[in-house]
């Protein structure tokens, strides 16, 4: 057993070593894989706020991931094709500036989270799972049937968006942007979790009646957490579009929601680094088992069952036992 902080540091060092290994061995694919892990970890970190610390299972986070992805794709495709998004009553041009696209992606997905959250948070348990799933599927079918942005075929963006002072088409540069954003997101999560708000959020998970009895409205706390969560997952979606230079309705499908959940549960719910560990393990399994057998997802499922049955705190819970709340 080691302290969770040491374990987290090791994770960071390992994660950083992969792209540089890729650089030394001249295997740019490693850099892409590491970037993918980082982006998916951001998506998971968003979900962890509600699933881990808030205790409500959202099966609809693909909506926020996909909305973030489409915000990025739509803005960039307009800019690259030189036609404005709307011309009337005033002209809004597309853009390829990440510094505009990323906050906007967070704003839009956070806004959707506000609407979906207001409608869903009155329910709980299975109903909450189902209604968040239903909303995500609605967005999915909307994207499929919207021909302006590729419909079912998706939307290609032939260049990555720009970041001042960096060539984002360079793998290491893009990885660095994503990595720094992941660290910022995890830092923000840590602050939130340990704040008065975090205390109320985690208390509402354990005993909402008690929280209401001390004068705090549990649903308001949960709604704010849901919005922050949606915005963070939306940020990941926007980066994912950049990574692939492509966005399609498949990022909005319920598979994506399920995968983001798997990252969190595999790594350890309500563990700060849980989503990172989960996403890394997921990608490793996909790569290595995927190379051996087509049915790698069977083994993923197998491992997931083992983790859920025998390691309540996920991988981090097995390796680093430290008191955590919730």
């Amino acid at each position, binding site marked *: 057993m080691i302290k969770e902080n040491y374990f987290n540091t090791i994770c960071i060092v390992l994660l950083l070593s992969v792209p540089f290994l890729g650089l030394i061995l001249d295997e740019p694919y490693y850099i892409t894989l590491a970037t993918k892990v980082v982006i998916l970890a951001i998506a998971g970190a968003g979900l962890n706020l509600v699933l881990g610390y808030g205790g409500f299972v959202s099966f609809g986070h693909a909506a926020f991931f996909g909305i973030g992805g489409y915000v990025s794709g739509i803005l960039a495709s307009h800019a690259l094709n030189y036609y404005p998004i709307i011309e009337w009553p005033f002209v809004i041009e597309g853009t390829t500036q990440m510094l505009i696209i990323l906050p906007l992606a967070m704003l839009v997905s956070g806004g959707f989270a506000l609407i979906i959250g207001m409608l869903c948070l009155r329910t709980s348990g299975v109903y909450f799972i189902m209604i968040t799933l239903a909303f995500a599927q609605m967005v999915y079918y909307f994207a499929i049937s919207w021909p302006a942005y590729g419909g079912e075929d998706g939307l290609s963006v032939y260049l990555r968006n720009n970041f001042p002072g960096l060539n984002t088409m360079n793998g290491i540069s893009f990885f660095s942007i994503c990595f720094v954003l992941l660290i910022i997101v995890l830092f923000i999560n840590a*602050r939130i979790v340990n704040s008065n708000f975090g205390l*109320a959020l985690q208390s509402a998970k*354990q005993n909402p009646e008690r929280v209401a009895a001390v004068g705090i409205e*549990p649903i308001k706390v949960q709604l704010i957490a849901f919005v922050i969560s949606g915005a963070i997952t939306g940020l990941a979606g926007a980066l994912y579009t950049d990574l692939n230079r492509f966005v399609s309705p498949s990022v909005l499908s319920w598979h994506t929601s399920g995968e983001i959940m798997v990252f969190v549960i595999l790594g350890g719910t309500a563990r700060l680094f849980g989503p990172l560990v989960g996403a890394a393990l997921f990608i490793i399994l996909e790569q290595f088992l995927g190379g051996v057998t087509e049915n790698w997802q069977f083994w993923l499922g197998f491992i997931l069952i083992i983790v859920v049955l025998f390691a309540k705190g996920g991988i981090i819970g097995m390796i680093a036992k430290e008191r955590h709340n919730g």
Partner: protein
Amino acid sequence: MVSPILSIQKVSKKFGAVIASEDVSIDLYQGEIHGLIGPNGAGKSTLIKQISGELKQDSGKIVLGEVEISNHPVFARAKMGLARSFQVSSIIPNFTVLENVILAIQGNLGLTFKFWKPVSKNQELIEAAHGYLDQVDLKMRMSVVASELSHGERRKLEISMALALEPKVFLLDEPMAGLGAAGSKVMTKQLAKLKSRAPILLIEHDMDAIFALADRISVLVYGRVIASGTVDEIRNNADVRQAYLGSDDL
């Protein structure tokens, strides 16, 4: 004429054909403990839930201070000064005793929507919590995770959280339940101290305790208040004796 702090006016509640409360009126004045007794199923807990806002009355009014709170949700009533303890202790199990009390303080002071400063570094909050824990002799247990507390300690923690709300009224639902003789004595002393802070509406099965503590008592049977008065009046009331099966232990 002094006006009551909490006024329950003709509150009625039915579940289908079952009458849980019928025209219940109780006034609670500053500085008193008002005992609420009655046989099992008399509707005591249902009444407490209507006062705290967990259940909505079918008719009647509940007034706290000058404000009618009949339609306010639970958290709003708590924020306005109704502090309640639960029949089965209700705490945040995976948080420490200290964190439980801090939660109550932040509820009272409206600090919940602070997202940045770690609670563990907020000396002001921590010291305030120490104060509330000291008042119930639980300070030495403050770092213990609440789920590991003994039954009696949980009761104390609930009282401490109620104190931290700096309430106008305490609603205490059987605070002595399961405490044993020694524990009940300690709690009786606690409650006697508590009433100087705010009046208490006290539901209790322990007759000795309630006759020792209460200034006035209301007796609830089948959802109706059959008698209300001082301890002596209640002790000598024929209807009350009848309700308690003519028992002599009153």
